[in-house]
């Protein structure tokens, strides 16, 4: 509790209030608008890929169906569980920041980073299997004995979609390391925790995108 008292006392000077805002509330509201708009742009960025996938799948349904059998559903499922867990620990981290609980904030941030690491680790295992079998995008596709032509296009989308998603996971891990440093320094309190809140929002979006990617890529019927 002495920690939180210290941060509260610190917060009275509003050390994180930028000069062009009148109050911390105004600053937080403006940032919140900015953050949600950023999330909208992320959805539209992935949206283009989803539209492309839907269209190409409707043009080549057989090829997509056969190609997706090369994916490992078990690993995909484990990764889904891992990512959902990480969203849960992220929520707990946000909650801890709001209740001035610095120790739990640090623990939950660490847990989230670990989950993200496990996700990427499993993804690497999956990728290396595909590399071995020659299941690569576009002209690099070298898998033999496909029953229907055109399976390379499925893997074009598989690598682009999971790759772009993976880059977002990496970025999220970077952001959480930054939060961790600031949390250790004692920057966050019930009065000031916008960065934790926003990285949380971002992380949930990355999670939601995977929730769509998993059935789309792994569970084609």
């Amino acid at each position, binding site marked *: 509790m002495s920690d939180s008292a210290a941060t509260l006392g610190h917060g009275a000077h509003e050390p994180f209030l930028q000069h062009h805002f009148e109050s911390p509330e105004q600053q937080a509201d*403006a940032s919140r608008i900015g953050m949600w708009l950023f999330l909208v742009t992320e959805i539209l960025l992935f949206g*283009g890929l989803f539209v492309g996938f839907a269209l*190409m799948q409707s*043009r080549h349904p057989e090829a997509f169906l056969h190609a997706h059998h090369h994916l490992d559903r078990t690993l995909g499922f484990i990764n889904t569980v891992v990512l959902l867990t990480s969203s849960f620990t992220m929520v707990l981290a946000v909650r801890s920041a709001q209740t001035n609980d610095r120790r739990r904030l640090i623990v939950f941030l660490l847990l989230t980073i670990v989950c993200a690491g496990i996700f990427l680790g499993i993804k690497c295992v999956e990728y290396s299997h595909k590399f071995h079998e020659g299941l690569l995008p576009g*002209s690099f596709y070298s898998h033999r004995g496909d029953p229907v032509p055109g399976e390379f296009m499925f893997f074009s989308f598989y690598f682009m979609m999971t790759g772009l998603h993976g880059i977002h996971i990496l970025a999220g891990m970077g952001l959480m390391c930054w939060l961790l440093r600031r949390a250790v320094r004692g920057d966050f309190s019930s009065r000031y925790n916008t960065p934790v809140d926003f990285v949380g929002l971002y992380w949930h979006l990355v999670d939601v995108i995977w929730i769509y990617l998993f059935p789309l890529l792994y569970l084609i019927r």
Partner: protein
Amino acid sequence: MPEDAIATQTGEGAANSGPANYLNEPRGLWSWLTTVDHKRIGVMYLFSVLFAFLLGGIFAILIRVQLLHSGGGIMKPETYNKIFTLHGVVMIFLFIIPSIPAAFGNFVLPLMLGAKDVAFPRLNLASYYIYVVGALLGIAAMVTGGLDTGWTLYTPYSTSTNGSVSLMTLAAFILGFSSIFTGINFIATVHKLRAPGMTWFRMPLFVWGIYSTAIIQILATPVLGITLLLLIMERMFHIGIFDPKLGGDPVLFQHFFWFYSHPAVYIMILPGMAIISEVIPAFSRKNIFGYKAIAYSSVAIALVSFLVWGHHMFVSGQSQFASAIFSFLTFLVAIPSGVKMFNWLATMYKGSISLEAPMLFAISFLLLFAIGGLTGLFLGALSVDVHLHDTYFVVAHFHFVMMGGTVMAFLAGLHYWWPKMFGRMYSERWARVAAALVFVGFNVTFLSQFLMGSQGMPRRYYNYLPQYHPMHVVSTIGSWFLGVGFLVMAGYLAVSLRKKMDAPANPWGATGLEWQTSSPPPTHNFEQVPVVTHGPYEYSLMGAGK
């Protein structure tokens, strides 16, 4: 580049740089490069887009000189393809999209709202440097092979041609982030940083226009981003999505591309309309007619803009039904545009009009945009478009809207806010000369292209039949008038920068908060936070004005 302004500051000494203001406080190049002041970022953007305008203009003059003669000319067909592509890419991605929002929006919008800065000043500076990186990559692409696809980058040609297509595409991808950051900044600023008493319907219409633009920047640009990324992947890995040989769909690229690029032409014109809504009441000395109608029509244009992209694709093989719907929706855009036109005219009616340089450009806008807008309806009509598609009629229409519209409005804004930005008046006499040259030159250049187009001259062709020769000659001569007009303008604006600061706080006797602070404004914009008690164009309250 901002160095010009600094050079004037330091070179001429403190004597003519006036009291402490955002230009001279703090001093030094480093303070400019690391500034988070929206005014300085606006000025850096202004000089950058002017440089891009010069570059694109040189390409334009080269195109016109080539077309002076059929056959030979000054360059090879391959070079010609590269030059018209670079003209389009530079003018669109480096000049016109960032021009008004990033230069004037950054400078004036916080002042108009009575704010100290935009909501995210560091993001604002980041957007400028992203713009610079994108521009440098674009220039690198031009130097290392150029590209010959046209600015539309249509597949499958763009995935099979040589040249620096991938590098230029990457540049456009990066420039998109700059545009998105600017849009996010303006929306958050308008929502949260208005001065006390500045209600939504007391905001100047410039702010409404920029706000609507920001909506499009945020919703459309990411789609362009993913499209360009897919194009790069197609070129590098042959992923198959756009290449018909691999089972892909080149028309899908057109859909993706226009889903961004049609709204993008409203990113270009809405800020222009926003400037006109400021200049017309200021020089008619009258409250704007139909304030709310103009405000809402900006938002309406922003929303409808997302539903009309298919009118670029009437002959692409998309379904006839889709084409009919897109044609109908395209006509809808004419309604909010017409609302604006008639409201501006009604504002001028019985006003006491003074024809200073900004107003001359604004009136040019009204005349030229009317033609550009109406010819857009010809092209939106299915049966007519089949004949006019890919002719000079389209080129002329586009330039009437973009140059007759946006560039004229840009020039109106440049002359309107120049004294505020730099604290100096330019030569009014020379400004009128430039306005006349630009107006006449523009019409000679592009009216002739309407005629050629309706007679069937296809766009982007290196060569043409003898029957089009006279019109091409007229068009090229017009382009020289335009060029001279811009050189004159560059001359008197540069001269004004070397003078002592002589602009009063409110040289035009205009309303609006930006005129209540000194010219140029102090670093923190206002000595005291202004309190707003009435609408933005209450010229009756101003008395005799200046």
